[in-house]
């Protein structure tokens, strides 16, 4: 870790288990028929003993196959899930983009949606009003502000969502594959804004299957497998480890 920088995110011994019920007992009948009978659960250990730090200003990548716990980890960092074990400390304002356009409603106008989405992302009404023109201009949506969102093309919706998202004032940004949705041009613009964010000394935690992007942009990376950290450090090394792991799996157990 770089000397002289503070710690943005501190994760120590974090574990998360989901109880996946077999035929979830959510109706009264089930409660009354078998009041003392406990529902059979399958325990799924999504994360176990995760410990790592992210320094301020670091671009930190997380890779791993599907179901390895990447999204669960981001949701624990974002405070959406509560971990069962360990501690998470976040220094600064953390802004999660688990998905672009949270709270978008197709029946409302772009104007209303900017207000709702911006509010959910932590902007005040005044900030949204002040930055409204900028948001609309960035998305090139001036002509459509008062149209219902259902009349927007999916590309326009993504542009609108991204335009709002980049207006949020944060210290730490969590990105979960959100950039995979747009076209080439859009992705290019996204990475340009990410570079700006980095120059401003902000921290970015980036989950992606785009290994090229991880290699190109990240200072450090972490490999998750079955909820545990398999490798951490220089992105090249971590990706090599990931590659070897996938290759071994492809060949099959020896």
């Amino acid at each position, binding site marked *: 870790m770089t000397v002289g920088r503070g710690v943005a995110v501190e994760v120590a011994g974090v574990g998360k288990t989901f109880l996946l019920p077999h035929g979830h007992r*959510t109706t009264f009948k089930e409660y009354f028929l078998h009041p003392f009978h406990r529902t059979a659960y399958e325990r799924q250990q999504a994360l176990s003993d995760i410990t790592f730090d992210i320094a301020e200003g670091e671009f930190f990548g997380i890779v791993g196959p599907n179901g390895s716990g990447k999204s669960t980890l981001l949701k624990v960092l974002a405070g959406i899930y509560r971990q069962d074990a360990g501690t998470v400390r976040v220094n600064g304002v953390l802004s999660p983009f688990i998905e672009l356009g949270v709270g978008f409603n197709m029946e*409302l106008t772009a104007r*209303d949606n900017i207000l709702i989405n911006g509010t959910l992302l932590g902007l005040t009404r005044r900030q949204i009003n002040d930055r409204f023109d900028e948001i609309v201009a960035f998305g090139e949506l001036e002509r459509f502000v008062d149209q219902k969102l259902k009349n927007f093309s999916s590309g326009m919706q993504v542009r609108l969502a991204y335009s709002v998202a980049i207006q949020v004032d944060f210290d730490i940004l969590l990105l979960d594959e959100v950039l995979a949705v747009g076209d080439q041009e859009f992705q290019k613009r996204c990475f340009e804004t990410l570079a700006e964010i980095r120059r401003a000394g902000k921290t970015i935690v980036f989950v992606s299957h785009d290994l090229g992007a991880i290699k190109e942009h990240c200072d450090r990376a972490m490999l998750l497998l079955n909820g545990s950290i398999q490798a951490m450090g220089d992105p090249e090394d971590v990706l090599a480890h990931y590659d070897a792991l996938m290759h071994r799996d492809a060949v099959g157990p020896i």
Partner: protein
Amino acid sequence: MLAVIATAEFKLKYTGSVLGYAWSVLKPLALFTLLYLVFGRVFNLNELSPYYAVSLLVGIVLYSFFADATMLGLISIVTRDSLIRKIAFPRIIITTSVTLTAGMTLLINITVVGAFLAYKQITPQLDWLLIPLLLVELYAFTLGVSLILAALFVRLRDLQQVWELALQLFFYASPILYPIGFLPPWAQKLAFLNPFTQVMQDIRALLFYPDVASNRITAAGAFGGLGRVVPIAIAIGTLVVGYVYFRRQEPWFAERA
């Protein structure tokens, strides 16, 4: 944040409908007309008091608020599961905002009651200034119930059917369409344990001051002395219990909703 979401919910509620916001007035009015014809005219409850009709309207408007708010509150968390899984913010905002949406409808309906009062040539009194306070008490009780229901519904999905039924019972158990004087004194006390009944009767007693005494029975009259604080304490207690229970369940909404 609360205001933004409550306003959006209000806009959404009537989007695409021809009559729009008018529905929030038309629905209680339609229920009122129906019940007035059946109970006021056919069963002649009308003859007991010149204020039967407008008194019934007050009851229905308040009940519609309670029923709408708690029903919207109950489903508020479960129906927004996708939102809850993507962003962390105090979940209590969701449930509070939908009850506020119902509150906006109540305010519109109160203007209709105002028109009826003017038609009946009832002169406003200074003590009517207490009515907003009573509405705040009713809101506190309603929010408390909604918070309990919203958090419970995440675990118990039968609750929606049960609550719909409970609201029907609530309607007939409360002296909305029959005068409270119909009940024997012990049943009146029981009815006044419900903060809704206390608020409704207090408001009626304030609005229809020339009405017959048996229609103006309030919790203060039924319990006497300090007993009048009992339903108020129940309303505040419900809000506290609702808040504490909701906050304790909140960390698990994202994985269970």
